């Protein structure tokens, strides 16, 4: 008799790794054989998790068609099952998986589309945080400004791609006009954020993207400004920073030591 811990491990392997034989020995036949009984559980696990991924990545699913999506999802679920029960959090690394999934190599824009869809999904789900009170910002001594680090609106994500993923994404939204899609139309820099009950996907110019993306990954204001200047040496930095405050994308800040 297997201890519970070991039974659950071999049961999991029987569901996800197709290593059935060990667990089958512990399942009673009772008419229908153990293999068919275990398959009922596997079917439920794979189909419900596939449906979870489909709802988070509806455009990827449309782009590759539902059957191929299910094939990719099956491989993803077996390699990277959810770690926790809140399934709206499941799929964060699906884009990375697609990047390394050989059958997807003919669709190089798919991982970026998955990144964009995850950003949209996140923006719709996460709890909002009150924006930073501007009076607090105004009270910061000028000399301290370069070494500020910011916490950002948690619904925000920054996605850039060498492909026109925003145009493809828009063309696949419900009610969108059919459009000719030109993959050579060039890349895009996007800011994704919840606005009211909806999610906005907005194109940023490369300097604004560099500034905001750097701040979002924890850079000091001075470093982020440097990133923007590298992309566009003549950028109006003061204007770009004022725009950050107008857009209320900060929720808090800390002074770096």
């Amino acid at each position, binding site marked *: *008799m*297997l*201890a*519970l*811990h070991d*039974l*659950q*491990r071999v*049961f*999991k392997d029987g*569901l*996800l790794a197709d290593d059935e034989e060990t667990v089958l020995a*512990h*399942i*009673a036949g*009772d*008419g*229908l*054989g*153990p293999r*068919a*009984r*275990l*398959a*009922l*559980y596997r079917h*439920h*696990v794979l189909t*419900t*998790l596939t449906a*979870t991924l489909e709802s988070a990545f509806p455009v990827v699913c449309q782009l590759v068609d539902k059957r191929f999506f299910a094939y990719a999802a099956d491989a993803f679920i077996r390699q990277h*099952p*959810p*770690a*926790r*029960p*809140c*399934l*709206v*959090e499941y799929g964060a690394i699906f884009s990375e998986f697609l990047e390394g999934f050989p059958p997807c190599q003919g669709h190089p824009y798919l991982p970026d589309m998955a990144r964009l869809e995850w950003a949209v999904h996140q923006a*719709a*789900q*996460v*709890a*909002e945080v009150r924006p930073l009170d501007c009076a607090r910002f105004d009270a910061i001594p000028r000399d301290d400004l370069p070494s500020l680090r910011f916490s950002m609106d948690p619904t925000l994500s920054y996605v850039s791609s060498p492909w026109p993923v925003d145009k493809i994404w828009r063309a696949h939204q419900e009610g969108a006009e059919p459009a000719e899609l030109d993959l050579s139309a060039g890349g895009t820099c996007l800011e994704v954020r919840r606005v009211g*009950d909806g999610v906005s996907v907005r194109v940023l110019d490369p300097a604004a993207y560099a500034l905001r993306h750097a701040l979002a990954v924890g850079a000091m204001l001075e470093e982020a400004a440097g990133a923007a200047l590298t992309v566009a040496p003549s950028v109006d930095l003061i204007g770009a920073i004022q725009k950050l405050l107008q857009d209320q994308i900060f929720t808090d800040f800390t002074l770096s030591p």
Partner: protein
Amino acid sequence: MSATSGPGRPDARAGIGLRAPHVGELLATRPAVPWLEIHPENYMMGGAALASLETARRDYPVSFHGVGLSLGSAGLIDRRHLERLKTLVDRIAPCLVSEHLSWSTSGGAYLNHLLPLPYTDETLAVVASHIHEVQESLGQSILIENPSSYLRFRHSTIPEPEFLAELARRTGCGLLCDVNNIYVTAWNLGLDAIAYLGALPTATVGEMHLAGHARNDADGQTILIDDHGSRVAPPVWTLYHEALQRFGPVPTLVEWDTDIPELSVLLAEACTADGLLEAARTRGGHARAA
């Protein structure tokens, strides 16, 4: 709102499981359904979902029916998940909190299914200790639901209803008697559904569930799948009638999770259950053993 201002146990009437496609219509029309049940896992991120639940909570008692605690997993319970559940319980003040006699997590993987347990002394000790921990953390007793099963482990030594009865005795938890699950499990494993009902300690049953199931062909045999995707099947209504005879009128919930119909269809199913509850109330003299 604190947990102590919650409405307590709902009346012995029939409520509905509230699912995302019905939230808008429910809030706009406020149908006269006596109570609602939700899966707390769908509200733990906060955001718009939680805001709509708080709005619904102003007009309806809300019960929490968890699917993520994995009470039957060997090893430690997921403390972060329990914390999130507690935060939500404190915020919404549910009238009931329930979970399943099953496991879903092994080696860091959450398998999104209510998986079957071997009914042994070891499992009993594991599940009882996890129920203790949850009840301690939430500061209230919970109900444990019998799962739908498609297989039985060879080394199980304790019949499921007796296993549930022993859990209730050891931990003080109540039982959520899912009538459809009893029917499905009894069919799939060749058990006697009426005898199953008879083996549950009546005083511990704090809620009942009803739902539809599907009939599937597997290797030439009919297997019932607990898909919550149709009306309650006639033999399940018959079994529910039996359960009411035995347990008396107990708060009852109709669940519908796949091929979700118009809200009115779900409400009509709850209405049917309500009629049977009303009949059980008027019959009165049921033998609700201590």
